[in-house]
């Protein structure tokens, strides 16, 4: 499923003194199969954008404002906002939002805060039951096997954790359970808001490895929001940079992080490898790499052996 957003705008608390424009005419396309990274400061509109993707924030249903009409003198008509996720048109009232939400799994920040089940397996099964259509409830066996698969897909041992309270698990395990509770409904697109936040370095590494595994097997598209530029450089195939409610760039990390000056001007950082490349450049050593640590080390060692030298 391809995501195509055009002219999205959103204002929190409209028509009040606290009105805050979170998105301003955002257009963005996310192809199927990407491991997509979204970056930007707190308040840049990232979270507001991803909440549109499964209809948590609806597009304005009354389209009066956008209807084709002659503009009054000096008036600029807003372009009509549209959002398509696969075959779902989110600007249509008649869209089946339940089916959409099943296809677009959303893992919020600190998803472990949302665990509530008495046992891990009940917690994970909730999503499944929630999406079951009326009269088409799943049999106990189908449910149990789906729950087992989801728990094992996130790298937990079903036999060990299934009957435990999710609150007795470690922080990293809780987060995995929360992710299992989302992927259990087999979404095609998995959206995660800062999946690695608050974990220790090892936990971070494990979560990113898990997401790559899911990307290969369970979910066609993975979208992560991250503040960590190294995480984006190391993991993503494409990235979008949000600033002040607009998309400034939508590029591969390799292209994005060449724009160091532009990123610094926005108060954002660049990955460590990009910093090293810049500093080496100043000394006349040009390294053409994709800003992952592995590629950087490979290129440096190749230079050392005298390969690829002019």
């Amino acid at each position, binding site marked *: 499923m391809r995501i195509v957003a055009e002219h999205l705008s959103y204002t929190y608390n409209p028509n009040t003194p*606290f009105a805050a424009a979170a998105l301003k005419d955002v257009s963005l396309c996310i192809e199927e199969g990407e491991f997509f990274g979204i970056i930007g*400061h*707190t*308040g840049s509109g990232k979270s507001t954008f991803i909440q549109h993707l499964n209809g948590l924030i609806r597009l304005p249903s009354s389209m009066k404002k956008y209807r084709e009409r002659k503009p009054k003198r000096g008036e600029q008509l807003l372009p009509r906002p549209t959002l398509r996720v696969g075959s779902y048109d989110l600007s249509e009232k008649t869209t089946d939002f339940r089916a959409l939400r099943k296809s677009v799994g959303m893992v919020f920040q*600190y998803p472990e805060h949302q665990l509530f089940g008495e046992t891990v397996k009940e917690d994970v099964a909730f999503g499944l039951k929630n999406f079951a259509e009326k009269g088409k409830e799943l049999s106990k066996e189908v449910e149990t096997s789906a729950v087992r698969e989801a728990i094992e897909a996130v790298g937990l041992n079903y036999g060990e954790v299934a009957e435990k309270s999710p609150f007795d698990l*470690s*922080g*990293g395990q809780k987060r995995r359970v929360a992710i299992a509770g989302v992927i259990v409904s087999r979404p095609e697109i998995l959206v995660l808001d800062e999946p690695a*936040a*608050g*974990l*220790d*370095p*090892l*936990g971070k*590494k494990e979560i990113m490895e898990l997401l790559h595994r899911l990307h290969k097997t369970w979910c066609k598209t993975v979208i992560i929001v991250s*503040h*960590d530029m*190294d995480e984006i450089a190391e993991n993503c195939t494409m990235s979008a940079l949000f600033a002040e409610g607009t998309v400034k760039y939508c590029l591969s990390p390799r292209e994005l992080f060449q724009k160091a000056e532009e990123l610094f001007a926005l*108060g954002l*950082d660049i990955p*460590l*490898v990009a*910093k*090293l490349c810049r*500093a*080496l450049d100043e*000394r006349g*050593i040009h390294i053409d790499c994709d800003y992952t*640590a*592995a590629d*950087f*080390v490979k290129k*440096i*060692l190749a*230079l*050392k052996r*005298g390969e690829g*030298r002019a």
Partner: protein
Amino acid sequence: MYALEFKDVSFSYGEGGFRIPKLNFTVKEGEFVAILGHNGSGKSTLARLANGILAPDRGTVSVFGAPVDEKHLYEVRRQVGVVFQNPDNQTVASIVEDDVAFGAENVGTPREEIGRRIDFALSAVGMQAHRLSAVSRLSGGQKQRVAIAGVLALKPRIMILDESTAMLDPRGRREIMEVAKRLNQEEGMTIVVITHFPEEALLADRALVMNRGELVMQGAPKEIFTRHEELITYNLELPRIGRIEKSLHEGGMPVKSTLNIEELVNEIAGELTCGS
């Protein structure tokens, strides 16, 4: 006299729970110490023992020579301020100045004095302009700075930051570490930073590594991060730059471990030019 002293401290969360077998360490007045350790290594338990939220089973914890016991508890809490992880769990009032005043009011500070303390605390964390703002409308980094101000209003001599930057974005994290560094340098405050971020530990004078309730390494942060093999056995990661240095090393380029971008680039440039 040490600012903080753990002497033969043992503690356990009950039968079969996490335990600290025996812990000995000291922090000097004016020191900036980082405590590292993976999840569940006992870092936060240590912070809780330091200001009497938890009491040791055996041994003594002393703060400026006074043992942390029932008799000295209030005195100790006034000296040791702790800032926790989640900014949203640490605010009690809806307006910034009320929130900052809460702790000081609680210990019976006179009214005029409280006003002065709020001024001092908010300017120390750079939040004077938000004195009358609603706490709920602040960013995570700003909320966390308000939490620090609330601790500062009690005029503690030691401040413990227990993963206080874990939930913040890079900007918020920088703000907090700058405040900690400034309080340490300008006010001479003793700072203990408990963190997962190797980059934050590098700011400290000294780093301690915890594993399974025991203190397993201590020394200058840079020196600690050169002991790769040991860190890995304690489930700790090197800072990113250290990992790159290590891979270069393993690939046959013997760069020195510097953990510094400029120095590493010099090393690489040196290696590449001397080979040709």
